[in-house]
């Protein structure tokens, strides 16, 4: 009977032990855990090539203000240097003792010099890092990444958040920017095309902007020359850097970036200029159906564009009746077609010269015929005849 009672109460005793165990760990646990207070929440990373290796600039989010009832975003830039990215990150850790967490990193900026070499020699670190979101935006910048990340944005306290706005859906729909993510860039690199593209960032000082101290805004530990005096910057990413086999091989100016966007079928509210009566007529694109078609029988690639547009504004003052009409004239549409055809041709030639398979033609060939791909993969771009079809309608 006693034994039976003992056996019956075993589960209760086990639950009790388990509860004590959990409570003990609740109060005394430290499974090497890195909680919110020991963490450096990295919002953006900048990578630059230096003479001795690399320099990695991390933008770390810090709570804004001292009033604990207030939130907000402010940031701090820490620079680490070393022979490779891993050494740079370790350098940052040794400087701050904050454990860097990449889970919120939404931007990697590659400096101009670093982009000239195989970017995967350092992006490798982020691709292998299981805590790095591969949905993070990737961009190349003019000058060094450290400069652009440490700069003071005119529109946001945190530069990476200001840059992030450039890659929003609205920007993409305007056709001004061609953003790319770490994942898609990697796919382009490892895929049959071995090519990809990245937006090219530039920062320009804002006229009339005031210079201000670091309080409340971002301040850099990299020791900027101006002490706490920072000039506010505006960012743009209207150009697109072309990559082949991981190296930056060319740069598309903004009109070619727009043409590329149109061919991708991204544009839904973008504006562009055509000519009407020797004056500028700005058209708004309502519908964009772009496409790239590869026909290996004829060894021809067709770059086609079918747009629906309406008149947005004219540089010549119109009659009041005309203002009410949104219909673009035949002349404006014709001019638009011509201009776009010229841009697309220019785009094709730029890619061809740079040996960048921007339209993933090798990939298309690979998917349609593995055999033909093996046969043509090396000189596909050079051997193709190009046909450009543009059609701009009301």
């Amino acid at each position: 009977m006693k034994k039976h009672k003992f056996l019956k109460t075993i589960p209760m005793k086990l639950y009790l032990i388990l509860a004590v165990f959990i409570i003990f760990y609740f109060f005394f646990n430290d499974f090497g855990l890195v909680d919110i207070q020991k963490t450096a929440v990295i919002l953006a990373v900048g990578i630059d090539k230096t003479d001795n290796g690399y320099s990695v600039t991390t933008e770390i989010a810090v709570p804004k203000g001292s009033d604990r009832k207030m939130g907000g975003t402010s940031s701090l830039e820490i620079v680490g240097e070393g022979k490779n990215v891993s050494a740079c990150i370790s350098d940052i850790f040794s400087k701050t003792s904050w454990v860097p967490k990449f889970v919120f990193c939404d931007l990697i900026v590659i400096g101009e010099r670093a982009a000239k070499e195989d970017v995967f020699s350092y992006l490798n670190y982020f691709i292998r890092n299981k805590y790095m979101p591969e949905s993070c935006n990737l961009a190349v910048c003019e000058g060094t990444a450290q400069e652009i990340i440490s700069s003071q944005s005119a529109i946001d306290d945190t530069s990476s958040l200001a840059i992030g706005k450039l890659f929003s859906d609205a920007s993409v729909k305007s056709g001004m920017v061609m953003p790319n993510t770490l994942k898609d860039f990697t796919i382009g690199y490892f895929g049959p095309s071995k090519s990809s593209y990245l937006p090219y960032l530039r920062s320009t000082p804002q006229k009339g902007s005031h210079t201000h101290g670091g309080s409340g805004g971002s301040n850099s530990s990299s020791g900027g020359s101006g002490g706490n005096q920072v000039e506010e910057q505006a960012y743009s990413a209207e150009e697109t850097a072309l990559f082949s086999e991981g190296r930056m091989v060319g740069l598309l100016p903004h009109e070619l970036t727009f043409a590329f966007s149109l061919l991708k079928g991204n544009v839904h509210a973008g504006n562009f200029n055509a000519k009407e009566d020797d004056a500028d007529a700005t058209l708004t694109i309502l519908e964009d159906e772009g496409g790239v078609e590869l026909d290996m029988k004829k060894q021809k690639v067709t770059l086609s564009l079918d747009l629906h547009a309406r008149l947005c504004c004219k540089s010549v003052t119109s009659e009041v009746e005309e203002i009410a009409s949104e219909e673009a004239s035949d002349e404006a549409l014709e001019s638009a077609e011509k201009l776009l055809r010229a841009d697309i041709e220019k785009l094709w030639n730029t890619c061809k010269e740079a040996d960048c398979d921007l339209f993933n033609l090798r990939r298309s060939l690979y998917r349609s015929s593995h055999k033909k791909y093996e046969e043509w993969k090396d000189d596909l771009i050079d051997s193709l005849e190009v046909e450009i079809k543009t059609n701009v309608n009301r």
Partner: protein
Amino acid sequence: MKRISSRQLYFFLACIAPVGKLLFLPTQLANSARNDLLFPMLASYLVQAGAIFCVLLLAKRKMNLYELLENTFGGIAAKILISIFALFLFYATLVPLLEQRLFVQNVFYDTLPSLIVFAPYYIFAAYVISKPLSSHGRVWDILAPLSVFGFLGILVLSVGSADFGALLPIGAGGIRGFLRGTMSATNWFFDASIALTLLGKFDYGKGMAWKGALFYLAGGVGVLTFLATFYGIFQETALHQLFAFSQTSQYFSGVTVLGRIDYLFIFALALVMAFYCILPAQAGVDCLLQAYGKPRYLPTVFSVLVTGTLFIISLTLDYRFSEVLEVISGTMFWIFPIFTVMLPILCLLLRRKRREKA
């Protein structure tokens, strides 16, 4: 609670069993068969569905596995055979358990946590194993909708980011890729073995064998859809995307606005997986209980012994998952087809009529 209903069994085959194939297997298949990864999976599913068909036919005989063996070979031989089968089931637990551990360490924590964080799983496993296998029928009733919720949620968030053209050209991996893929998938297909241990716990209904196989294939269609989405998203980089189902949904545009809402679905599937990956061990214990009787203390003793051993093994094999996988799905891959495919077929040859007991 002592019986499993046919609905619960179908829930297991269609909704629970596929979850175990969404974690490491897609990466493994992408590694071996590249863009042809659907074919090894399809082949494995078809073979396993056939094996499940055989197992469900055995249910007509109204005997559990031990009774089936005892009926033909006698008590001692049946005990030996069923003990070997139980050992196989413990062996089959190894990969799901280790992949689960890696999954937990990587997905549930922002930085690599210490080993101890996975220890509570063994307490959970011990509790699950100590319960009769038949009680799982009711668990499946709860887990099946959770599994569908998690799976559909992830699929809906992922499918928009996929480029299904990446699955072309068909056959680029060649026969070799297909065979390598099929071989490497064997250790994830042990569902027929689990169904074998469920014999005697459910009643055979009309058309149950083909219905069961069809439900299993329906689950397979879900897995194949996920696999296609997975490869469509990651394409050439799929082979380094571990823990597939936790990766695909992060590219959904709503994630930037609401945060990682996809974790809701990931957690739902993780809960289902917590039950599924200990299921072979529980089935193994059930086999032993079938053979060696059911004194009240025995399930608890077995559960403590089995989870204790698994805990020690997983500690020993810490950070050696790829080596373990290489051995289990490489050199030793043939073990799984023996127990999960051949055994159910051979069981059909066992004596049909009950032997008169002396």
